[in-house]
Structure formats: C-alpha cells, structure tokens
C-alpha cells in the first residue's frame, strides 16, 4: 500500500517536473506501429535520443490502417498543425502532400539519393523537387510452392496452366490467390496485371490510358481466371492481404501474390508450408514485362514544423545502414539502399534471399505519380470490382473509369494536354 502511494507521489512529482520543463521543444514522429514495426521504431528512437541528448523525441500514435492514417494526416495538415514533425507516408501519398504544400522539399538538405533505388526516389519527386526519402520498400512478389513444381512459372499463362493442373489433380483447392476485395490492394493487383500485359493507368505524359486494349485484355484475363478457368478462386473478391496469407499458409493455394512481410510469417511453426515455398518476380503476360507494384513508406517533413533541421537529422539517422539492417532483421522490410544488397550484414538479416529481393525490386514499377492517386484508386476500385464480379464487361468498366478520371483531371487542370 505504502509503496503504491509512494509510486503515485513520484508520478505526480514527475508530472510537475515535466510541466515545468514544458517550453522545451519536442520533435515528434508518427508512423505505422503495426506488428514488429513499432518494436523496431521504439528501439531506434531510443538510440537516437542517446546520440542526441539535446533533442527530445516523441512518438505520435496514429491508426494502424493506412487509409485512416491518411485521413488523420489530411485533417491535421488542413488545420496547419506543426506536429508530427516527421511523417511516415505511403509512397503513393507523396505527390498529393507535396502538391498541397503540406510537406517540405528536401533538396536543401542535399540527401544522398544516388545510393538509393532510382524508381523509389522517382516516386517521391513532384515537379522536379524531392519531397520525401524512401524508408523501406514494399514490392509485390510471387510466392510459389517448391513441393508442387520444380521452378516458378515464367508467364501468367504458365501460372494459370500449372494452377489448373494442380487443382485437377487435387493437390491444392486453389491455384493463384491475390487481393481482390474492393480496397486499395485491388488496384495494386490490377496495376501488376496491367504491367504484365503492357498497359498502364497513366502514360509517361500523364494521359489516361486505362481504357487501352492492353488494359482491357489485362482485366479480362483477371476476370476469366476467376470465372472462366477457375485458376483463381472467387473468394479472392473479398480477400485482403491476410486472407490470402492464411490460404497459402494452410497449404490451400499453389501461388500467392503478396508483400515481403508474409515471408517470415510463412516460415514459422504455425505455417504448414514452412520450408516448402520460395519467392520470384511476378510473371509477365503476353505483350508485357513482369511488373510488380513498387510500394513502401517514405519519410517527409511537415511543412508547418518549426524545427525542420532537427526533423531532417532524425530522418538521416533512421536511414543509416545500421538502422535499415535492423529494420530488415526485425520487421523483414527491404531497405531502399541498393548497395546494402551486396553486404553480408543484410543477407544475414533478411529472410528473403537478398539477391532475389534486389532482382524483384529492380523489376518493379511505380504506380502513377500523381497528386490524385487516392481518387484514381477509388474510381478504379469500383470499376474493376464491378468487372470482376461480372456486373459489367471489362471494356465498359474501364471506359467508365477512364471517363471519370479524365473528368477529374480536367477539373483540376492536371495532365491531359
């Protein structure tokens, strides 16, 4: 009892001390604390505190779901709040935040972008200026079962053929599983199929080409693999990342499209496919090259922050090789620095073979770099899902989506010369 009272008293006194020291500025950072990401970030912030005793650093809690974090950021930044000073952004948000004037250009700090994967840096440029630095790279990968086939398929057609054969032979109930629920993950899977067929959402001039012949072929292929040859189960139309991981982990699927996070989890004791799977680049289709969507997170500085220099010091610290390798080891996330992939330290830290990871990253394509990516994604989510659930023909669905996107861009005077 007395010790509890003493604790309470000590707590109150600490609080008083904190209040007295309130004028001291606190550098704040917010980002995903999901799973092991929180663990590694706390660890590294503690190390940063020790290295910079003059700075006070604090974590700002934000929702785990990326969409909700996005909403919250937008509301904060509309209100011109200077906190958090350092923002973890999903790579597709960078142009949006840059165009809105919510994040500061990093060119003044002269960051060492030459050491990073060029595609990951390009996704963070807006109108020629760099607005964020890649923190870790997420990339779509093909998970395949080494006990069911000798080598991964080299094309989408081969993948479908192998799936059909394995299903017919009752080796697995499902062939290929990907994220097909109506949410942002569906557009990632769609972009990858688009790339495999040589299509795109926007071309290099920012023109809308999502209703091209290649795009119609890609979407038709996706629909037919669900409702035609059954190489993809119709259940994927309600599935997100974790649903597909459970199916693959329980040995129900021959192939899975997923992010790198699944690799470590599939190797654990709960997994029925531990030791019986590997990763490869997503296969290409007729007329296209293999195309994995390039995702991941970046670090940016809040434009309303009153301590941008300290904020950059924190970003610089988090991007040191030591921190990146630790993040790879604990959270399984790929570092954006190309050179690291040749080091023994990273090879030892990553569960995915480092050379394989590098090969997949170099083949990856960025999603459209536009300040209205989230709007494009919303429009396409509805149209693509309508086509996949056979409410509309792929051609009509994509024509609708293209018209809506063109109208949006025209209204905003973006692109479409």
């Amino acid at each position, binding site marked *: 009892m007395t010790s509890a009272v003493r604790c309470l008293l000590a707590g109150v006194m600490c609080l008083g001390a904190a209040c007295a020291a309130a004028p001291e500025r606190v550098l704040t950072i917010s980002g995903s604390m999901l799973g092991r990401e929180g663990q590694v970030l706390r660890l590294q912030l503690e190390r940063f505190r020790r290295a910079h005793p003059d700075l006070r650093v604090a974590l700002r809690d934000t929702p785990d779901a990326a969409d909700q974090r996005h909403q919250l950021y*937008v509301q904060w930044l509309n209100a011109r709040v200077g906190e958090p000073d350092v923002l973890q952004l999903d790579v597709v948000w960078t142009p949006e935040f840059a*165009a809105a004037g919510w994040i500061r250009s990093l060119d003044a700090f002269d960051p060492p972008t030459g050491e990073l994967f060029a595609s990951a840096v390009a996704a963070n440029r807006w109108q020629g200026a760099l607005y964020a630095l890649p923190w870790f790279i997420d990339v779509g990968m093909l998970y395949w079962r080494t006990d069911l086939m000798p080598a991964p398929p080299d094309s989408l057609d081969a993948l479908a053929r192998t799936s059909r054969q394995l299903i017919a032979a009752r080796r697995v109930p499902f062939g290929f599983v990907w994220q097909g629920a109506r949410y942002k993950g569906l557009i990632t899977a769609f972009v990858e199929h688009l790339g495999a067929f040589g299509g795109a959402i926007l071309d290099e001039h920012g023109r809308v080409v999502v209703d091209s012949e290649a795009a119609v072929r890609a979407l038709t292929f996706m629909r037919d693999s669900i409702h035609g040859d059954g190489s993809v189960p119709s259940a994927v139309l309600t599935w997100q990342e974790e649903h597909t991981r459970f199916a693959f982990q329980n040995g129900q699927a021959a192939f899975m499209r997923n992010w790198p996070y699944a690799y470590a989890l599939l190797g654990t004791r709960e997994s029925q496919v531990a030791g019986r799977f590997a990763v490869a680049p997503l296969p290409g289709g007729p007329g296209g090259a293999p195309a994995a969507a390039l995702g991941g997170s970046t670090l940016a500085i809040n434009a309303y922050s009153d301590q941008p220099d300290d904020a950059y010091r924190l970003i610089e610290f988090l991007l040191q090789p030591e921190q990146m390798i630790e993040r790879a080891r604990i959270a399984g996330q790929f570092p954006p620095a190309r050179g690291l992939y040749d080091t023994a330290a990273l090879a030892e830290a990553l569960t995915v073979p480092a050379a394989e990871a590098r090969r997949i990253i170099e083949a990856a394509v960025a999603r459209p770099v536009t300040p209205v990516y989230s709007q494009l994604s919303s429009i396409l989510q509805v149209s693509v899902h309508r086509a996949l659930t056979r409410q509309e023909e792929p051609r009509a669905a994509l024509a609708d989506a293209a018209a809506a996107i063109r109208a949006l861009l025209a209204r905003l005077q973006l692109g479409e010369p």
Partner: protein
Amino acid sequence: MSRTRLSPAGRGSNDADARLAWTLVLPALAITLAFGFLPIVWTFWESLHLHDLRMPWRGRPFVGAGNYLEIVADPRFWSALGHTGFFVAATLVIELAAGLLLAMALDRVTRARGLVRTAVLLPWAVPTVVVALIWRFMFESPGGLASTLAGGSRFAPQTWFADPVAAWIPLLLADAWKTTPFVAILLLAGLQQIDRSLYEAAEVDGASAWRRFRHITLPLLMPALLVAALFRSLDAFRVFDLVYVMTGGGPGTATEPIALYTFATLLQHLEFGLGAALSMIVFVMAFVVALASIRLFGGRAFLERSA
C-alpha cells in the same frame, strides 16, 4: 408564446413574467440551437461550397447549387438511393411479418413471461457491429457455415459477397435477426391492449381463427403496426454499420446505401462540400418522411402509445 393579459395590474408584471420565463427557457433553447439547429445550418452553408480537404490549393469557393447538381447527375447516388429504398421495403416486410408472428406467439406464453421476453430481445441488445461480424463470418469463406449448409445446392453462390444479388441475402437476414424482436415487443404491447372479450364474443358467434385475426386483431393492432413501421423505416433508411461491416457496399457498389455513400464522400474522400450536400439531402428526406407519417397517421398513434 402567445401573450395573453392575465391581470389588469398592467404590462409591468407581465413583462417581468415573460422575462423570467425566457430566462428559464434560455439554457434549453441555447442547447437546442447549438447542438440541433446550428449544425444543420452549418452543414447547409458548407454544402454550397467546393471544399476538398485533399486539395487545399483549390480553396473553398462558393459554388451555390453546384454540389447538388453534381449529385443529381451522379449515377452512384441514384443507385445508392435505390438500394436504400429496397433495403427499407424488404426489411420492413420481413420484420413486420416475422415480428407479428413472434408477438402472437409471445402473447400466448403463460409461464416465465419475463424470462421468455428477455430471451427474445437478446439479438436486439447485441451491438450492430458484432451482429454484422458474426453474419459476415457465417457467409464469408468457402468453408463458412452458410456455404456448408447450402453445400450441394446449385443455387448457392460460391462467394456470397462477390455476387451483386446474393450479397443482399446475408444483409437482410442479419437485419431481420437483429430487429425483429424489437418489432415483436412493440406489437406485443399492442396485442395486450386488445380487449379479450371481443375474442370471446367472436368465438361465441362462430368466427374462425382467421376471421378473428383479420377482423379483430389486425384493425386494433393498426396503430402499433404503424408506429413499428415508422420506427423501422426511418431506422432502415439510415442503415450504415451493418453494410459497412458486412459488404462495405460491394461488390462494386451493388449494396451501397445512401448513408454509406455519404460516409465515403465525407470521411474517406474528404470532399466536405459534396458530402455536406449529400447529408442535407438525406436529412431533408428523413425529415419529410417523418412529418408526412405524423400527418398521415395523425398524432393519435403516438398519443395513444404514450398515454
């Protein structure tokens, strides 16, 4: 607020009374204004502006009826309205019919009445989100309860929530499961107000059970039925959480009701102006329905109930 002169003592004391009355009413009035009236006015004002939080460079220009015109031209709005209308009609029919049956069954229970009624009300006490999650799990996966039960049937879809028609079935079932007990309890109260001697007289006259139901129960239960129908339709019109959790409005937007569309516009796309206009439309529609019902059924139904 009519000012009648009560005493010839002069205006002075009257004014003092009025002032006192106003002072006493003021807090309640201020709260009503601040929390009821002001938000509506504010929303209306917002609905006349183009205001997209994601694009601050566009500012917040006044666009008059621009947002309303955009909504009227939007096919997604009309289909959301259609889905809402369908949901209201379908759940109303199912829940009134099932609720009436349940109420008549409850009316006959003679032993452990309190216990039975409490047990029946349980589904209604479960939070909607929990109900929605339970029903989603039953219908979601290929190994789910519903797909297993409907196993051999060739009418059962492989994936309920990926079929624009079949996706409605779990939605309607879940809503019926949750709210039928509420309707039943409302109707039970109505049933118990019916004078038993009417039935006895009808029986003596040789009226069949159907005729007794048709000519005694139904007409006398009408006020209770109307109240239940009004409550349920206004509630179903606002349906949000059930659909949000179970289908998210999908596949595509095949099960998206108006409340979910408003939510997506306002809080996911952060288009405040457009979302405010949608909210105003929903508000006005609910308001008109409520007013019309009160006019049609008369205040009577409510007065009798509260008496």
